[in-house]
């Protein structure tokens, strides 16, 4: 059978594959069916902040960060995340101590039904990690894969710009 180096070969035994994933900074060992999508496994393992919307790569509600880059969890097999780092909304902040991006979303009224917000917040994080000082067109472009059916996106764009300002101020004060 096939031989590979690096992450090697993951072969199913009794219809299951063992994978290890660094999720929100913690190593986790999961047993998954080979054909299971990352979205379904994350939700089964308790990461319910990852939402199931279109399940077809169109809406962005299942956005997670894979090695720091935004990806659609509904378009990846869980096994593809083997020995890679994932960040979900649960790893960003807590209700008591929200991340500055989450705080900005709350303060600007960007959250209505909330279904799209985990994806929006993570897409915003990916943007601000790469470009700490984005202008409005850059924010709109970074969020153009995350659909919201409640709002006209104005508040989310305001939230991202506010978060950028605050994060920049934090870094400037360090």
């Amino acid at each position, binding site marked *: *059978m*096939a031989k*590979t*180096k*690096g*992450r*090697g*070969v*993951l*072969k*199913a035994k009794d219809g299951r*594959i063992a994978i290890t994933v660094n999720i929100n900074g913690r190593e986790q060992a999961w047993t998954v*069916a*080979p*054909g*299971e*999508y990352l979205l*379904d496994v994350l939700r089964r393992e308790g990461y319910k902040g990852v939402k199931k919307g279109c399940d*077809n*790569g169109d809406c*962005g509600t299942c*956005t997670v960060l894979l090695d720091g*880059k*935004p*990806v*659609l969890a509904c*378009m*990846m*097999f869980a*096994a*593809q995340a*083997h020995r890679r780092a994932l960040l979900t909304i649960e790893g960003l902040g807590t209700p008591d101590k929200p991340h500055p991006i989450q705080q900005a979303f709350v303060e600007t009224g960007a959250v209505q039904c909330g279904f799209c917000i985990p994806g929006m917040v993570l*897409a915003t994080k*990916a943007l601000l990690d790469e470009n700490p000082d984005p202008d409005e067109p850059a924010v709109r*472009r*970074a*969020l*153009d*894969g*995350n659909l919201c059916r409640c709002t006209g996106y104005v508040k989310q764009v305001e939230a991202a710009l506010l978060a950028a300002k605050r994060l920049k101020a934090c870094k400037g004060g360090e």
Partner: protein
Amino acid sequence: MKNNIKQFCFPTSAKEAASLINRLKSKAVVVAGGTRLSRALLPTVETVVDLADLPLKHIKADKRSLRIGALCSIAELEKSPLLAQWAGGVIAKAASHWSNALARSMGTVGGNVARAHPHNNLPPVFLALDAVAVCTDGRREKTIPFAQLLEPGLMRELGTRYIVVEVRVPAETRTWSAACARLALTKTSWEAYTNCVVAVDRKDGAARRAAVVIGSVLPRAVRLAKAEAALAGKPCGEASARAAAAAAVAELEALTGRAEAKAYACRTSGVLVRRCLMEAFQG
């Protein structure tokens, strides 16, 4: 859930990946960005060959060519300072037109080329810039011009026999003037009515050589020879742009068999050709 999958392989070289798919044949499928394939697997597939670990994420130039690794994401093309300077930034601009931020973050050059759906943005721009794709079957590398690569026979071999390693764009195209534009329902629509790329090599105010490419209208991106002929040796101005646009519409109408469903796409392609040429002439 795809119940037919039995194993995942994570090769670390293109040679290794190509050897795997040639050995496993229809039981294997390669996945790069995974923006389309993971939802459209054939029932024969038992092995997923994930290319994510291949060291093919380079964008660099040498004396002979610009070299773009097949595992570069579309977002990396969009943000590359080198590509922003190359041929009027047309590669970066074409990348920026593709779908939405999440798709650009996941999608790769290799996938966009190897699964050359008519709406993909990169094949037309590489075709206009006389690019070649370097592919391997695990034993030897093969350099294939894009004009050949997009032929259905060869296209079927990408991902089943060959792995795309990199795209090479000739060094002389660096100073060409080029432009691209697309017409779609929305900015983030992956499907377009038409997708136009023009590239012009200018000398003393005239077009020494020109490429006019249209994607989305036909099953694969095509160079429009009559539109290119209308530009060759002519002064770079409104008159030649209009003549090339008219030739492009006539050529597209002939290629589509004057199908009523394609009439709008043919006419708007002419508009985009003229606009792109004017932009390229002024660049």
